[in-house]
């Protein structure tokens, strides 16, 4: 296994932790919700890690792409009359193609990371407006109930709340995405990504097709974001445009990725655990100040803390000469999670 997937055992361990995590809080819809959101934002941040961390393409329309995924899944399932399980791949493909087009155009025209961020931010605002404006398709700002994937039936058969089933579905997708990520980064794609990031011109001169690799990264990110968006709506059991705004998705995913550490395999998961823990604590003690604190967090993170928790922890342990026994310390932070 480790030939195909370096660090596979560690991933299995992390996966196992998340499998056990809901057991103590099975009865609490609130805690299951917190855990589900943790995994969802890990998924968003993972996509961002691929496209921004490894490819310097700052996608600021994750909310919009996630919304495209969620609405398309519902609309395809509804109009064609097929199961949402078949509609989801269609939606993911569409979002993937949008990601691919943006990356392809940006790479062809040699857009800088800033230009891509402004371009996608504008796309985000177009999508947001379209979700509200296309009332006949999306139900406008009031939205519609979102209970696809017939999870209620599974839940009844197993005898657990539907939210728990949703959680495990999300976990399955996150683990699949983690496997894909680890494989991708250790394959020729990862090597090409690294070469392009170091020096685009040099990479091109040794025969790496920069446009192709960037487009692939955009496609993969689009697919993952669409799945995460669909599951986000499913977790909320109701879909409205407000779920997919820039502030609700992109800002949080960015904070998650930076907290965890950019280009760190377990960065998205560690970041999501920390951010959702902060959010849960704020939710009970300072709900009104939640937005303000996230804003402050974004500023402080970017000015002082751009390497993320994992790297900082490593530096700390190295300074004190404590060995973590190899690896990048990701599990060290994850292990404290299930009691939260």
């Amino acid at each position, binding site marked *: 296994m480790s030939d195909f997937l370096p660090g596979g055992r560690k991933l299995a361990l992390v996966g196992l932790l998340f499998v056990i995590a809901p057991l103590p809080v099975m009865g609490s819809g609130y805690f299951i919700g917190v855990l589900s959101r943790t995994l969802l934002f890990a998924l968003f941040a993972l996509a961002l890690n691929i496209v921004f961390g490894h490819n310097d393409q*700052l996608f600021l329309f994750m909310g919009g792409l996630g919304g495209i995924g969620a609405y398309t899944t519902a609309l395809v399932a509804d109009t064609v009359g097929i199961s949402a399980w078949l509609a989801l791949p269609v939606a993911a493909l569409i979002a993937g193609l949008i990601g691919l087009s943006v990356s392809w*155009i940006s790479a062809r*025209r*040699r*857009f*800088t*990371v*800033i*230009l891509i*961020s*402004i*371009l996608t*931010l*504008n*796309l985000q*605002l*177009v999508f947001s*407006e*379209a979700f*509200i*404006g296309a009332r006949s398709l999306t139900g406008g700002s009031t939205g519609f109930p979102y209970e696809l994937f017939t999870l209620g039936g599974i839940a009844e058969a197993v005898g657990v709340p539907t939210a728990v089933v949703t959680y495990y579905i999300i976990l399955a997708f996150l683990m699949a995405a983690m496997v894909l990520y680890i494989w991708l980064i250790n394959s020729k794609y990862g090597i090409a990504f690294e070469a392009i990031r170091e020096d685009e011109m040099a990479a091109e001169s040794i025969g790496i097709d920069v446009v192709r690799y960037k487009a692939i990264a955009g496609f993969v990110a689009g697919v993952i974001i669409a799945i995460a968006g669909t599951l986000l709506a499913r977790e909320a059991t109701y879909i409205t445009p407000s779920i997919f705004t*820039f*502030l609700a998705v992109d*800002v949080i995913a*960015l904070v998650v990725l930076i907290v965890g550490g950019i280009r760190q395999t377990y960065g998205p998961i560690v970041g999501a655990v920390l951010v959702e823990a902060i959010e849960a604590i704020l939710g009970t003690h300072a709900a*009104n*100040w*939640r*937005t*303000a*604190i*996230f*804003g*402050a*967090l*974004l*500023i*402080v993170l*970017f*000015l002082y803390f751009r390497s993320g928790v994992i790297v900082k922890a490593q530096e700390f342990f190295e300074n004190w000469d404590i060995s973590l026994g190899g690896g990048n310390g990701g599990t060290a932070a994850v292990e404290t999670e299930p009691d939260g």
Partner: protein
Amino acid sequence: MVTVSTMAALVVDGLAFGASLALLGVGITLVYGLGEVLNLAIGAFAVIAAILAALLIESGLSLPIAVLGGLAFVGVFGLVVDRTLLSMVYRSDGEERILIGIFTTLGLTVLLEGVMVNYVASQYSLPLGLDPIQLGSTVVTGTSVASIVVAAVVLAVLFLFLNRTFLGKATRTVFQDERGARLVGINPRKIRTLVFVLSVLVAGLAGMLAAARSNVSVASSFEFTTFALIVSIVGGVRSLVGAVVAGLLLGLINTMANFFVGSYFATIILFGAAIVFLLFRPEVMSS
């Protein structure tokens, strides 16, 4: 069919909206051109000025004093932000500075919004109390005309400052060639502070003009920021004249589209215009 007088009224309203957009766009353009910081918090400054002025009027002050009070507050606040947050951003340079600038100002806007919703959660407006004006067969609102006049005066003063005064010329020198400016003894950091304060004052005025025409709330701040961004992009990001022209043009297009095809579609047209410009003239944003 739409009558000529309706069209004329639409044009005036469009130009009035465009005047606010032009001011916002100029605010972004000034700071980006000078220090490559894309101020994504500009809408928050606009909203703070407008809400503060509205609150001052509520407490019994007259309109001119309330306007001055609002502007003075955002000016001082802008100075504080520049000396603290932006000082840290300016420590890095090149593409990294632009990126950190984007995130820092984005964080600032989220922070300010998050703080404000706890204190000023309702809708605010600044009624000017002007009568409608008769132009031939067309009746236009006094507020629209006043918006256009105020914006025109502010922009004229700004251009005079940049073109005629020593400080203004020094500013433009930094705009064009930072190293050259430093060689002749201009301190770019001081100029940047000055220009940042100027830009938030202009944005504050834009917010007040918007509040004069309709309601403004905390949630408007991100909308203002995105409008400013679009205007700045379409105008060429480094060109002040471009920002003014783009602001007026987009204001007209938006108002027309609003009237003929509805507001959601109008907004999409606005953002679509920015995307088209980015795709065809990407060089405007490169450092």
